[in-house]
């Protein structure tokens, strides 16, 4: 950032040649040597991680280049929907819940959490005529969705596990005449806090501890730092909005079918 400001003129990022990339991988010798030298049980994992990263990003790079070149709103929309599906399945897997019952409501919850802030950003704020222009829709959508994914996993896990482990407390509320909505409200509140807490904490310390990834990218891409921070503020607000919407929707949309007609939690929603 400092270098870019000092030079006065802002340029686009320099492409890395094959030789440069080889040099990048050569730098891996340092962390790998530290791992080996101290016999940290992480060497194999680190190698696999580096290989995976390379292959995954190569795939995304090739695909995105194709998407950006065509820049068709339909293709861009389809890409976002595919990302929603991948996120959807990944949430259900990682939250220990039964796939069949949760995939559809979660798809809707993710779509809502992604579409509402993204379209608001692309439409009224950026005023793009082509609403789903690849240059904006794909990276912004990806960032919002990634955070929705994380928030939904934390939120759903917190909600259903709290009700399961504190079942008697939950039944106590039912015994006192609570409706399902009233009896689940404390758990909803806790789940939202657990899911949104990390985003709020990130917002509070942004720029102090670490330069956010998006800002780094935008600055590397040759944009003025002041423009970069405006995008960063906008994306943080979009993420907070998206995560709040998606967690609330995920819990609302799954609650009705996750409890028996009499009120107790339906234990069959858990995989084991």
């Amino acid at each position, binding site marked *: 950032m400092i270098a870019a400001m000092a030079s006065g003129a802002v340029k686009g990022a320099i492409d890395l040649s094959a030789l440069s990339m080889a040099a990048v991988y050569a730098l891996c010798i340092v962390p790998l040597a530290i791992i080996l030298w101290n016999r940290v049980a992480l060497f194999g994992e680190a190698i696999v991680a580096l290989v995976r990263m390379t292959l995954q990003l190569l795939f995304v790079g090739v695909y995105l280049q194709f998407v950006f070149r065509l820049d068709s709103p339909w293709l861009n929309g389809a890409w976002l929907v595919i990302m929603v599906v991948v996120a959807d399945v990944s949430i259900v897997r990682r939250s220990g819940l039964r796939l069949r019952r949760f995939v559809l409501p979660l798809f809707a919850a993710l779509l809502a959490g992604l579409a509402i802030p993204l379209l608001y950003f692309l439409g009224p704020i950026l005023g793009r005529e082509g609403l789903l222009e690849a240059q904006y829709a794909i990276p912004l959508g990806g960032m919002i969705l990634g955070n929705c994914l994380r928030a939904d996993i934390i939120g759903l896990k917190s909600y259903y596990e709290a009700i399961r482990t*504190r079942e*008697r*407390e939950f*039944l*106590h*509320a*039912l*015994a*006192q*005449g*609570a*409706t399902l909505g*009233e009896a689940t409200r*404390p758990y909803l509140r806790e789940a939202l806090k657990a899911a949104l807490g990390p985003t709020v904490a990130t917002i509070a310390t942004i720029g102090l501890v670490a330069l956010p990834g998006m800002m780094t990218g935008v600055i590397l891409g040759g944009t003025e730092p002041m423009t970069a921070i405006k995008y960063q503020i906008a994306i943080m607000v979009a993420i907070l909005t998206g995560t709040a919407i998606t967690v609330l929707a995920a819990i609302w949309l799954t609650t009705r079918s996750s409890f*028996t*007609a*009499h*009120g*107790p939690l339906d234990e069959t929603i858990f995989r084991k």
Partner: protein
Amino acid sequence: MKTAEAAAIRIENLALRFEGRSVLENLSLALPEGGRVTLTGPSGSGKSSVLRCVMGFAVPASGNVFVRGERVTGHSVWKLRTQLAYVAQEPVLAAGTLREEFERPFEYRANHGARGNLEKLPELLERFLLPQELLDQDVVRLSGGEKQRAAIVSALLLDRRIFLMDEPASALDTAARDAVLEFFRERTDLSVLVVSHAPQGFDLGGRAIALPERARAGGAG
């Protein structure tokens, strides 16, 4: 679905299964309005599960439960629960102070109308030997007996008339037990269904029904 002479609770041919095993079969009983019935039986005989079935927290394998003539179903139970007081053996109260525990249920729409009853709280606390200072204490620090009496007080504040009590004597010391017994002996307008493995410790009169022991039916209490 109301029947002519509606008992407070009527149980017809109730059968319970726990993890595929039969825990209880063919239980029928009627608790008249203002009546007292004690279900006795060793642990594992399914006593507590009978109360859970009345509350809708467990679903019987077969048979029916009626509350004031209305059959307990997934649809009706939400309304019927607002007439029932469930006093668990060791009640688990939501985190917070005892005062919050008493006030919280009035936030539920079903109890909005009874809010004025909170005025009776000091009198009820005294009646059940619960000192006023307990109100500001965290519920996790209450003893089992204090929680049981708190659950009774809470139900009375909510105008509940049908009491389901699971082992009411187990956690209470003599003085507290006498206070509870004396209260229910006076209040003949309340209907009480007690389950207990040692009924001699908590004698409210009325009928006693002994459940047979079931082999290896543990866990259903």
